[in-house]
C-alpha cells in the first residue's frame, strides 16, 4: 500500500478500491485533499472557499456507511471528495459565481447534481474559482482572483471552469463538477491536462446551476481519467422533473462502454477546422493522436461542417441574449449585494454597476442590444436560424461518422494577462468547442501530449477533443478510454500535483 500521503494522487477508481478494502478512510481521503490545498492552493488559488466541518461530517457519514457494509456497487462514489464550481448550488454553502453581486449569498437548496452526488455517497465540498458568471476563458474575469495553471503558474488554467480543472490536475480533489456553455469544461481540462466532459444538452439536470445561457449550459465532470468521467457522469445523468429541458430517457451503463478496441468505428476530421492559427505543437500532437486512433482500429474520414465559420458569431449573439435576461434577477432586492438608492431604479443600477465586472457588463449590453426592437430579427432571430444550420451540419456529419476529433483549443495555456486587453482574441480560444454547445451534442477533452519539444517553450498539456452524437456519450468514452489506455498521458502529473 502506498502511503496515505500519496492518496491524493489516486483517481476515483483507485480511491474507491482502497476505501472498499478499508485501506484508507473517507476522512483520510478528505484530509489528503485539505493537506494538498494547504500545500499548493496559496499559489494555485483554485478554491474560493471550503467548509471543513461540513465536508468532515459527510466523510464521517461515508465512513459509517462503509463500516456498516455499504458497497461502492450501491453507492459508487462513497467517500470520494468531489468539489464544485462556484456556479452550482449546495445547500447552506455560499454560491457566488465568482461575482461581487452575489456577495454573502448562501444557497437555500441543493442543485440536482449535488443531490445525486450525495446519493452516490460523494463528499461534496468547496467552491471553485471561475470567470464571473462563467463568462470567460481564463478565470481572469473572477471577481476574487485568477487561478493559475498547475503546469506553469505564470499561465492561465483556462476557463470559465478554471478552478475545476486546476484543482483536479493539482490533486486537491478527486474530481469536480463544472459547467460548459461554449467550452468552459473542455478548454480548461485541455489546458490543465485532465479529462473534461460536456454531456449532451438535456442529459444532466441544470436545476441548481446558476444560468449563463440556458439553451447552451450543461454540467459535466472533470476527472483524472476517462473511467472516472464515466463514473461521475453515471451519478449525475438522467431525467429530472425539476428541469423541463432534461430528457426523460433511461441512462445507459457508461462503464460498460469502456474497454475494447476501435475496430468498426468511423472518426471524422473536420475540413473547416483545418485553419491557420493552430499552434504547431498542438497540431503535431493532434495528428499523432489521430494516427493512434487509426492504429487502434478506427477509420478516419474527412467531414464537413460548412457553417463552422459562423459559430462564434452565432454564439456571441445567443449566449449574451439569454444571459441578459438570466442575470436580470441580480438587482439587490432579494439577496446578494445591495447598493442603496433613492428609488428602486437607482438601487438597481447602483447595485448592478458595483456588482458586475466588465466582461459581464459587456455581455449584458451585447445581449440587451441584440434583443432590442428593430435589431431582434437581424441578430437574434438570424442567429437562431444559423444555429439550426450548425445543428444540421453535425447531424449530417454524424450520418457518416461515429465521432469527430479536433484539437480542444488552438493553443496551449496562454500567459496571465496576455489576452485580457483583447476580448476577441480571448473569444477565439473557444473556436473548436462552441459549435458543440450550439448543436447540443456531447464532447470530451482528453490529454494527448505536451508542448516543449523546443527549449523555448514550456511543457504544457495539449487536449484532444472528441465530439459525439446527441446522447452518444458511450461512444465518446469508448474512443477516449481506448486512446488513454494506449498512451498513458493521464499518468503525467503537473509539477504542483
Amino acid at each position, binding site marked *: 500500500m502506498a502511503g496515505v500521503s500519496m492518496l491524493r494522487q489516486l483517481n476515483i477508481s483507485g480511491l474507491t478500491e482502497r476505501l472498499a478494502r478499508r485501506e484508507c478512510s473517507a476522512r483520510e481521503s478528505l484530509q489528503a485533499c485539505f493537506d494538498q490545498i494547504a500545500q499548493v492552493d496559496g499559489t494555485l488559488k483554485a478554491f474560493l472557499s471550503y467548509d471543513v466541518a461540513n465536508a468532515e461530517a459527510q466523510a464521517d457519514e461515508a465512513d459509517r456507511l462503509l463500516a456498516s457494509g455499504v458497497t461502492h456497487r450501491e453507492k459508487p462514489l462513497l467517500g470520494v471528495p468531489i468539489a464544485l464550481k462556484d456556479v452550482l448550488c449546495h445547500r447552506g454553502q455560499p454560491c457566488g459565481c465568482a461575482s461581487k453581486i452575489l456577495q454573502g449569498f448562501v444557497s437555500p437548496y441543493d442543485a440536482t447534481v449535488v443531490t445525486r452526488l450525495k446519493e452516490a455517497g460523494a463528499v461534496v465540498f468547496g467552491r471553485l474559482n471561475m470567470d464571473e458568471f462563467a463568462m470567460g476563458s481564463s478565470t481572469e474575469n473572477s471577481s476574487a482572483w485568477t487561478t493559475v495553471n498547475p503546469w506553469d503558474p505564470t499561465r492561465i488554467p483556462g476557463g470559465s471552469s478554471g478552478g475545476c480543472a486546476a484543482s483536479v490536475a493539482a490533486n486537491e480533489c478527486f474530481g469536480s463538477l463544472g459547467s460548459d456553455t461554449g467550452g468552459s469544461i473542455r478548454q480548461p481540462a485541455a489546458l490543465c491536462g485532465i479529462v473534461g466532459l460536456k454531456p449532451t444538452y438535456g442529459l444532466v439536470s441544470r436545476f441548481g446551476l*446558476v444560468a449563463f445561457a440556458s439553451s447552451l449550459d450543461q454540467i459535466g465532470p472533470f476527472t483524472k481519467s476517462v473511467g472516472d468521467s464515466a463514473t461521475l457522469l453515471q451519478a449525475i445523468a438522467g431525467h429530472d422533473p425539476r428541469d423541463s429541458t432534461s430528457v426523460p430517457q433511461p441512462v445507459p451503463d457508461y462503464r460498460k462502454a469502456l474497454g475494447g478496441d476501435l475496430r468498426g468505428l468511423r472518426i471524422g476530421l473536420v475540413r473547416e477546422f483545418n485553419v491557420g492559427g493552430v499552434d504547431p505543437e498542438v497540431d503535431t500532437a493532434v495528428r499523432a493522436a489521430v494516427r493512434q486512433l487509426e492504429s487502434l482500429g478506427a477509420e478516419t474520414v474527412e467531414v464537413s461542417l460548412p457553417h463552422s465559420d459562423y459559430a462564434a458569431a452565432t454564439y456571441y449573439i445567443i449566449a449574451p441574449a439569454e444571459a441578459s435576461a438570466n442575470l436580470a434577477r441580480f438587482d439587490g432586492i432579494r439577496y446578494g449585494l445591495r447598493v442603496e438608492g433613492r428609488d*428602486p431604479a437607482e438601487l438597481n443600477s447602483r447595485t448592478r454597476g458595483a456588482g458586475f465586472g466588465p466582461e459581464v457588463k459587456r455581455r449584458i449590453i451585447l445581449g*440587451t442590444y441584440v*434583443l432590442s426592437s428593430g435589431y431582434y430579427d437581424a441578430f437574434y432571430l438570424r442567429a437562431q436560424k444559423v444555429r439550426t444550420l450548425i445543428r444540421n451540419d453535425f447531424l449530417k456529419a454524424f450520418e457518416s461518422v461515429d465521432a469527430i476529433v479536433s484539437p480542444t483549443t488552438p493553443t496551449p495555456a496562454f500567459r496571465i494577462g496576455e489576452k485580457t486587453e483583447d476580448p476577441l482574441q480571448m473569444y477565439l480560444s473557444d473556436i473548436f468547442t462552441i459549435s458543440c454547445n450550439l448543436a447540443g451534442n456531447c464532447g470530451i477533452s482528453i490529454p494527448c501530449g505536451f508542448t516543449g519539444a523546443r527549449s523555448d517553450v514550456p511543457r504544457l498539456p495539449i487536449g484532444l477533443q472528441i465530439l459525439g452524437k446527441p446522447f452518444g456519450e458511450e461512444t465518446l468514452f469508448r474512443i477516449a478510454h481506448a486512446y488513454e489506455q494506449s498512451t498513458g498521458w493521464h499518468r503525467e502529473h503537473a509539477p504542483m500535483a
Partner: protein
Amino acid sequence: MDFETVIGLETHVQLKTRSKMWCTCPNTFGAEPNTNVCPICLGMPGVLPVANDEALRLTVLTGLLLNCEIPKYAKFDRKNYFYPDSAKNYQVTQYDRPSTQNGWVEFEFEGADPDAEGRRRTRVRITRAHLEEDVGKNNHFERYSGVDFNRAGVPLLEIVSEPDLTGSDMAYAYLRALTDILVRGGISDCDLEKGMVRCDVNISVRPRGQSTLGAKIELKNLNSFSAVRRAIEFESGRQIEAVKRGEALRQETRRWDDEAGITEPMRSKEDAHDYRYFPEPDLMPFAPTETWLDEVRARVPELPLARKERLMRDYALPAGDADVLTDHLPLGQFFEAAARGFRNPKAIANWVINNLPAALSAHGVRLADLRFGPDAIRELVTLVESGRISSKIAQDVFAEMFTSGAGPEAIVAAKGWAQVSDSSAIEGLADEVIAANPGPAADFRAGRTAALNFLKGQLMKLSKGRANPAMAGEVLERKLRNVVHSPPISPS
C-alpha cells in the same frame, strides 16, 4: 361632429389552480407576506420553471369556452423589464404563439339591435387568451417599501379583446359576461376584492363613419368593473373634447384616479418600454396531444347564455325566470331536477324562484342543507294541481316541509289538510253561512254580487281553509239564486 368610441379590453384573470405556475407553492389568497414562496418563485439563482399542467388545461379550456382556435404549437417567452415586484426581472408569458386565439364572446346587451326573435345580444371578438405568471405586490410603508412575493408566479390568463366595444355599458356587460363564463367553467373565482381580475382599457375616439382608429390610449389602475365603466365615460368625453378643440391626441398610458374620477398621464418612461421578448429557453414548446385535448374538451360546461336559452325552450319559462335559474346555478339545478318531464314547469319555477330562496334566507339555511329534495316540490305542485289542497294550504305544507323535512303527501294526511271537494259537505257549510249572514245574503239577492265574496270567505273560514274555493263559490251562488228565481226559468 358626431363621435364614436372604440374600446378594447385586456383582462387579467388569476387561474384557479392548487399551486403556482412554475413551483409547488400554494396558490391561495390572504397568507402572511412572503410565506407562500420558495426559491423558484423568489427567482433565486439556479432555479428553473416547470409548467403547471392544470394551468395549461385551464387556459385551453378558456379557449374552448371563448370559441377560440387552439393552435397545435404554443410556446413561452420572456418579457424583460426591471421592477421590484418581478422576482426575475422578466415575466414568462406567451408572446407570438399563444395557447388560444381568434375567438368570441356572445352576450346580452340592451344597446344591441334586436335580432329576428327580438333578442338583444352582441359579440365581441377575442384576439387571444394567453398564459403568463403574476408578479409580486409592492407595499409602501412610512419609511420604506416591501415586496410580497406570495402572488409572484400565480398563473394568470390575459384575455385580449378586439376593439369591438363601443361604450362603457357595453364594456361592463362584456366583463360581466366574460367573468360569468370563467366562473362557470371553473377557470377562476373572478373575485375582484382579492384582485383575481384586473383590467386594462385601450380606448380611442373617431368621427362616426371614419374607419381608421384614433390614437390608442391605454388606461391602467382599474380595480373594479365600475371603475372601468367610469374611466371609459370620463376618457371618451375627454378625448372627444380634445379633438373638438383641435388637439392632436397621441398614444400614451394614462392612470385612472378612482377618487378624483379622472385619468392622468403616467410617466412617459412607461411608454418607452422595449420588452425585448425572446423564447423562454427553460421551457419546451407546448404541443397538446389529442388525448390531452379530449380530456380538456370533456370539461366544457354549459355556458350561461346557452343555458338561459335552453331553460326558456325546454321548460317554457319567461326570460326573467331563466335568468335567475342561470345566474344561481344550484337553484337552477334544483329546478331542473324537479321539473324534468313535468307538465307545468312554470309552477315549479315559481316555488323554486320565490318561496324557496325566501325561506332559505329567513331561516339562514343553505340550499345544500335543505331537508327536502326536488321531488318534494314536484309532489307539492301535484297536490295543488290535482285540487287536493288549495294554494293557500300549500304554503302551510311548504313551511312544514321546510322545518320537518316530511313529504307533502304525508304532511297533508297527518294534518288532515286535504281540500274538501265533497259537494254535500260544502252544501251544509253554505246553508250554515247563509243562515248566519242574512244581511249579505239579502244584498246579493238585491243584485250586489260583491257580497258573494264575503260569504265565500266566511265559508272558507268555517272549513278552516280546506273547502275547495271554486266549489264553495258555485254552491253559494246556486243556493242564493235558487231562492230568488223559484221556480227556475224554463228555456224559452
